[in-house]
């Protein structure tokens, strides 16, 4: 292809699809039409934002991370501590949390440049575990296992109090989610984003056509860490609380699952996945609160056996898979019984 052709095809990829615009409209409308559900919706928006950040490194750069909660938790504790000790303004706290998470991301990104998938899994898991231990042991600062309590936030923009029904919280989370999604969208359709996909698909070839692979990985890891930190800060600010749970392995595994449910590599997987996941969670927890994890596990196993690509492409459900699909596929994926 000649140069203008390439440019045209890339631009076509970056075009706004009608459903994308519809999605944003629906998100905005949900604030007006579901006032009773604001707490749940705010939670969904936070998780969706977290999943979005994972999608940048997993879906676009192909890095499997089992410790993405490190940045989420770092942002959460950062925002909570900032509000408690420095200044209760949410927006400045958010900026602070994003900045320190990005710094942590940049610092730890050198760890993911070398080695195999296993090494990266171990290192990301290790970083999250170290932060967990730190938060656990530095009781004077973080409150240890009791969590960091007594975080009081100032009104948003000096005007909107965080109310008990979560109206302000949801609006705030929604705005941050949309802004971050737009930024991420701009990033993945830029030449930088295209080059990430190139190095995900074939790192050797990407290197040999002259891409600076390590520099790109560092950059995207830092960006993803910053967004994950924003999600963590949202959680801490809207709930006024930060606990060890934010660093937990469970959280890293959960966000991975959410992203996989929604589908990786097209940015909106996190949003769809978070909606499906939280609704399922609410449904199953209401029915069997203690053993929700069992169904989560079963769901994961079935999902992978059936093939996670097929979940987001309903038209392939009744077709024989192109190799690798098991007879279990006949059950139809998706609904854990």
């Amino acid at each position, binding site marked *: 292809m000649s140069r203008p052709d390439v440019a045209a095809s890339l631009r076509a990829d970056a075009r706004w699809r009608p459903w994308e615009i519809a999605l944003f409209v629906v998100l905005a409308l949900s604030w007006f039409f579901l006032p009773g559900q604001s707490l749940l919706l705010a939670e969904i928006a936070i998780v969706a934002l977290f999943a979005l950040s994972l999608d940048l490194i*997993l879906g676009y750069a192909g890095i*499997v991370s*089992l410790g993405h909660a490190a940045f989420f938790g770092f942002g959460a504790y950062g925002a909570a501590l900032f509000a408690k000790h420095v200044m209760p303004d949410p927006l400045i706290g958010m900026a602070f949390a994003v900045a320190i998470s990005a710094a942590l991301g940049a610092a730890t990104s*050198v*760890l993911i440049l*070398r*080695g*195999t*998938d*296993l*090494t990266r*899994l*171990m*290192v990301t*898991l*290790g*970083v999250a*575990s*170290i932060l967990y*231990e*730190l938060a*656990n*042991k530095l009781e004077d600062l973080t409150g240890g296992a009791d969590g960091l309590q007594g975080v009081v936030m100032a009104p948003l923009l000096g005007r909107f109090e965080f109310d008990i029904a979560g109206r302000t919280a949801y609006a705030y989370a929604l705005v941050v989610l949309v802004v971050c999604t737009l930024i991420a969208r701009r990033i993945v359709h830029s030449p930088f984003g295209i080059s990430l996909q190139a190095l995900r698909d074939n790192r050797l070839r990407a290197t040999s056509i002259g891409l600076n692979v390590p520099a790109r990985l560092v950059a995207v890891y830092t960006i993803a860490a910053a967004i994950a930190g924003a999600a963590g800060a949202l959680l801490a600010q809207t709930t006024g609380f930060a606990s060890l749970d934010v660093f937990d*392995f469970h959280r890293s*595994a959960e966000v*991975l*699952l959410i992203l*996989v449910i929604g589908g990786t590599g097209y940015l909106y997987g996190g949003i769809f996945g978070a909606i499906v996941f939280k609704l399922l969670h609410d449904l199953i927890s209401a029915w069997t609160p*203690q*053993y929700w*994890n*069992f169904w*989560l*596990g*079963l*769901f*994961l*196993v079935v*999902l*992978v*056996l059936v093939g*996670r690509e097929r979940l987001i492409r309903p038209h392939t459900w009744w077709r024989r898979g192109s190799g*690798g699909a*098991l007879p279990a596929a006949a059950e139809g994926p998706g609904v854990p019984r």
Partner: protein
Amino acid sequence: MLTLLFDGIAYGMLLFVLAVGLAVTLGLMNFINLAHGAFAMAGGYVTVLLMNRLGVPFLVCLPIAFFATAAVGALLERTLYRPMYAKPHLDQVLFSIGLVFMAVTTVDYVVGSMQQNIRLPGWLQGRFAIEWVGIGKYRLFIIVVCGLLTVALQWVLSRTRFGSRLRASVDDPRVAGGLGLDVNRIFLLTFAVGSGLAGLGGALGAEVLGLDPTFPLKFMIYFLIVVSVGGTTTITGPLLAALLLGIADVAGKYYVPKLGAFIVYSLMIVILMLRPQGLFARASGK
């Protein structure tokens, strides 16, 4: 000081027996099995339930734990694991995390979430002293059993026909298959033995490591450390890594309890930074 070293060695040997199956799975089929700890937990619970509910003696429980877990491992390998080998690592991770969650909640549902205790037979309780080194009898027992197992494993791997087939399959499954080796069968057997060893380790370790439904999650990272630091190409690599980890963990928790598991994780990250293929791995083209 030497007592600490002794405890560390016992802990390390235990970790080795628990994790060696994982090393083989990973080396042979390049499969990241985060659910390995679930097999260890199964072995532990088999022992606890047999001893406490049916009054089976401890020494009889150990082989039962081995064979029961090996059977479960073989069954799962045949039905669930095999289709996973060809899938990307992300799928394997999700799949095995799913298994862990299921195992944890199942045990929670069936047995309950409290910590299980094992009543050791009298001749294994207490400790004695040689010079100034206090030695727990049970720790010594663990070292002896695990040491024998290690020697046996090493012998099987390096001296028997099965061992050479296994090594051939690890080095290059495709060529091994091309030479007429039934790689699938070898792997089924190896997986079963690896799970069985994990089960045995779980049974032995129930007293030392503690046993409750979150066992697979708590120790998952330890097993993975042993394997990733030790490398998957030899059996001595994981052994040394397990000993190192055991001693570092025991010593770290004794001397600087404030830092907790901090030392172990940091050490792992540093080692993996310097030697991404593992500390003791041969340079391989894979």
